[in-house]
């Protein structure tokens, strides 16, 4: 069981690649529409240094934006989740802001901050703070009043309640939102790079696509996907350590 668990993601991944490869050759999908995994692998192999050069930058900007998003998103979530006023006044604005495709805002950033790392970090940040804020806010707003009363009966301040009950209680959902947010951070920095940057996977992708090297575009995508998965592995480890209590007797343990 334990072993099967460890193999499963690779097995499913491989299966997917296989289906993709076969479908590509069976339906004769041209490589400039959707390259087959083999073609992508070749492009990846041939351009590995270039890809490394660009992807390291993307990883950096993504993490920068993500860290900002975690800090700001948690703060915003705490505000929105613990004050009715903040909830009713900020939520609609946030929704409005987030419905807007950031592609339209990147040019503004570029004009203000110049081409380079700043717009990418800011775009990654703008795309990814919202899920964190929403989940933290929901976590705080749905704390069992009984648990909150335990702290309030000790004369705890609102901040104490948030720190001692709110945050731990919402941790599983904070982690859930981190999973969503990291993916959005990647999307954000890559999009910003596609629109204005001299380095990064986004740059690589526009350049490759301008030269009609579609397999290289997809090689870039694959690298992003892997970086996303690597980040996920980090969170998953932290999550297991910090929120074990929340999944204590989950279905996972049935029969155990």
């Amino acid at each position, binding site marked *: 069981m334990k072993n099967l668990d460890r193999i499963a993601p690779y097995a499913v991944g491989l299966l997917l690649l296989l289906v993709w490869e076969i479908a590509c050759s069976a339906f004769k999908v*041209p490589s*400039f*529409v959707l390259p087959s995994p083999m073609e992508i692998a070749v492009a990846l192999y041939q*351009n590995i*240094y*270039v890809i490394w*050069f660009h992807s390291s930058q993307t990883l950096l900007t993504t993490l920068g934006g993500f860290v900002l998003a975690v800090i700001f998103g948690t703060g915003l979530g705490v505000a929105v989740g613990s004050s009715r006023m903040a909830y009713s006044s900020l939520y609609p604005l946030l929704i409005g802001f987030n419905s807007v495709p950031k592609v339209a805002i990147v*040019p503004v950033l*570029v*004009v203000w901050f*110049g*081409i380079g790392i700043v717009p990418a970090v800011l775009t990654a940040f703008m795309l990814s703070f919202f899920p964190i804020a929403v989940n933290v806010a929901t976590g705080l707003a749905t704390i069992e009043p009984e648990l909150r009363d335990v702290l309030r009966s000790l004369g705890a301040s609102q901040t104490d309640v948030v720190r001692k009950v709110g945050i731990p209680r919402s941790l599983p959902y904070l982690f859930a939102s981190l999973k969503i947010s990291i993916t959005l951070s990647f999307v954000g920095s890559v999009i910003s790079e596609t*629109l*204005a940057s*001299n380095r990064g996977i986004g*740059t*690589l992708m*526009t*350049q*490759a*696509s*301008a*030269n*009609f*090297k579609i397999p*290289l575009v997809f090689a870039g995508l694959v690298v992003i996907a892997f970086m996303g998965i690597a980040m996920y592995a980090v969170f998953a480890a932290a999550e297991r350590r910090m929120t074990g209590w929340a999944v204590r007797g989950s279905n996972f343990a049935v029969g155990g």
Partner: protein
Amino acid sequence: QDLKPVHFSLDWALQGNHAIWALALKNKYFEENGLNVTMDRGYGSGDTVVKVAAGAYDIGFTDINAVIKFNAENPGQRLVGFYQVFDRTPNSIITLKKSGIAKPADLAGHTIGAPEADSSRIMFGAFAKANSIDPASVKWVSMAPNLRETMLAQGQVDAISGFSSTSVFNLIAAGIPREDIVVIPYSDNGLDLYGSALVAKPEYIEKNPDIIKGFVKATIEGTVALLKDPASGMAAIKEGDPLFDEKLEADRLAYLMDIGVLKSKAFDENGLGYIDPAKMETTIKTNSEVYNIAAPAADTVYTTAFLPPQAERMPPK
């Protein structure tokens, strides 16, 4: 000595013709003219116009047609061209042999793909008028620039419009034989307009005449070097951009020279950067008709004040 910093934006991702400035950088033509130039790729002519107008860049390489349009929309923020790099616009209709389209008149009843924003699509009205076809007789399909060739190759549209120098090579990359590709250039079919130029804000030009002069000089030196030895130009770009495909871009450059964009009879006779006032007048008039704007005075669109004497800007034989 003190080098003056200049931020320069190209119109698009690095392509063969951009070797003009790659060589100017590599061979220190800019430095010799007192300039410290940082060069960034662009994201479309329209975008470059905006970035120069907004002050994010000092100088841009962009389509003069886009400048005319922008000036009309933003009279307070206008840009001025000070050196014409492309003698003609590479805008064309591109199609495949099997479509049966060989001349403008054949387009009637067909679908053409292009971004709404593309100058080739916007200019189509004028192109249609020049060729006496009804603009309403073709059906446009909108798509991102890099989707064009795919859609044509896949048969989702009958033709596309855009820069032939881009589309032809993308189609070849998609596995279409060169001889199956049909190009109908606007400039050979009654719409002989100017193409891309170096532009800047008039205030900037006024304040920094030396920079402009120096930039023009370096550009001419770069062009001469490139025309003499295209391969060295490709190598110069490749140095800074490992993704650059030297062979493809050398072909593209040769193509741009062939079709009279980068190398033309007018340039050969009158020197690089030469502007024929009559042809520029046509360019301005065509744009004003297409965009339904008052034709701007020619001196608000371009200036030749910074061109060195003709002898100093003759292309190599």
